[in-house]
């Protein structure tokens, strides 16, 4: 079902964060902390699982485009006892586009997401921490994320929760109302919202995804049960088009035993 028992889910996810990190010999979690809903929920879970001092929220704005979000992130971090580090990514991003200029907002947005990824992974070494992912199930299924950017992480506690479920979890975790009410945005450009860009409300996207994915019902059946035809078709197309973002890239098979084909070991091998 779509409804979750938020206390139970929080307990499972905290155990997941703690156990997965400890198995690999880590005690600290690092995350990109935008002040939006997903990263705030992830920060709150990580603080509960690992202790606030073992969580580093990396606040990585481009210039001062989202100063409200930065303030929200900092305020929540104080409340959770989470450490933060603020790095303005504009010098790195601007340096690149000064040499290779573009007006393409998608290219600029992707570059920013990957710049943040590079900074997170760089900090994982001196911090001796692992990157906690914040991509939710809605984003993973619709491909609404930058591959090797915000989708990159060591473990992802939120990847099996739809956006609307993440919000329910955020309410349970007593996140500030400002964060809970925020219009979700990938922050690729000022004024952008996910719902504006996809052209559908999250409540509708999630309800359709639930029917297609969790209930595994064919699109025609979902439409016949009362969902808007164009919305269902659009979401189905998004899922199919973004498969590559959810997979390791295919490896050309030559030998008898090949990585990704028949060299089959669990991620948690010997842990």
């Amino acid at each position, binding site marked *: 079902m779509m409804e979750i*028992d938020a206390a139970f889910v929080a307990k499972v996810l905290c155990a997941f964060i703690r156990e997965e990190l400890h198995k690999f010999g880590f005690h600290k979690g690092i995350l990109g902390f935008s002040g939006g809903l997903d990263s705030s929920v992830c920060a709150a879970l990580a603080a509960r699982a690992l202790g606030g001092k073992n969580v580093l929220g990396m606040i990585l704005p481009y210039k001062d485009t989202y100063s409200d979000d930065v303030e929200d992130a900092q305020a929540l971090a104080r409340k959770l006892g989470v450490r933060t580090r603020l790095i303005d990514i504009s010098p790195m991003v601007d340096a690149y586009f000064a040499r290779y200029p573009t007006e393409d907002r998608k290219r600029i947005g992707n570059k920013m997401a990957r710049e943040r990824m590079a900074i997170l992974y760089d900090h994982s070494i001196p911090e001796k921490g692992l990157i906690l992912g914040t991509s939710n199930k809605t984003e993973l299924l619709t491909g609404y994320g930058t591959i090797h950017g915000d989708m990159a992480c060591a473990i992802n506690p939120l990847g099996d929760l739809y956006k609307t479920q993440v919000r329910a979890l955020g309410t349970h975790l007593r996140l500030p109302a400002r964060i809970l009410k925020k219009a979700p945005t990938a922050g690729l450009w000022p004024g952008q919202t996910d719902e504006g860009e996809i052209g559908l409300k999250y409540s509708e996207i999630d309800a359709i995804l639930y029917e297609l994915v969790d209930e595994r019902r064919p699109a025609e059946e979902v439409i016949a049960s009362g969902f808007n035809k164009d919305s269902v078709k659009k979401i189905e197309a998004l899922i199919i088009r973004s498969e590559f973002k959810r997979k390791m890239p295919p490896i050309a098979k030559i030998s008898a035993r090949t990585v990704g084909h028949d060299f089959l*070991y*669990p991620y948690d*091998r010997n842990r």
Partner: protein
Amino acid sequence: MRVALAQISSHLGELRKNLDLHLETIEKARRGKAHLVIFPELSLTGYTLMDLVPEVALDPARHPVFQKIVAASRTIDLVLGFVEERGKGLFYNSAAYLSRGRISHIHRKVFLPTGGMFEEAKFFAPGKAFGTFATSFGNAGLMVCRDFLHYGAGYLLFAGGADLVIVISAAPGRGMTAGPVFATSRMWELMGEAISFFSTTFVIYCNRVGFEDGKAFAGGSFIFGPSGRRLVKAPETEEKLVLADLRLDDIRAARKKWTFLRDDRPEVILRSLERIIGDDGD
């Protein structure tokens, strides 16, 4: 009799670490005055083994790690899960009942879930039998995880005269409910309730906890009495050693009330099955 359900989290692919975990848990159960300790499915190896299967497979009659556990059964009965290698290169998802320093019985998982998130038949050979065997507490029968969800398997242990049905499991939690449990937890209890009542046996179910590759094993181990009453339930997803006292006289009491066992007609079932199999035109 006192049973200990060892709802543990094994280390994936680490026999030695898991040996220590077993011995510590057995010691705790012994201090708790348990007579029988039940470990989960593949407790000695972890569950999501894939290509690790041949690397952790062992011959229980010879392997030093397994022999240490057999030795620990001198004063307390044990059930555990492991990868068994028979002959050369046939690997089974097996459960063993150990007692008085010997292996009393080995059950090899018959129903290997393969589909969706499960791929056991890619890595294991299927077992071919369900049988009962004598223990100091009565006749017992073993099942491994998915075996239990095929009700024909439960029938065979019933027809074989089981007093105790022991199920070891590594069942991941799946699906949300309105309450603090995974949706799949109800499925296991449903079968536990049904088999215990209609077989007039104890059903002892031990599931593991912990995470492997993102899967949360759901725990929620339980025991049902021979009248279909739940006697004990371990917490969902938390490590725990649960002790429970079983009154073995309850089996007789249940069979006085409900004569399912007396009235069973296995020869009719067998003939009907032979007819069904013979009719199979595929």
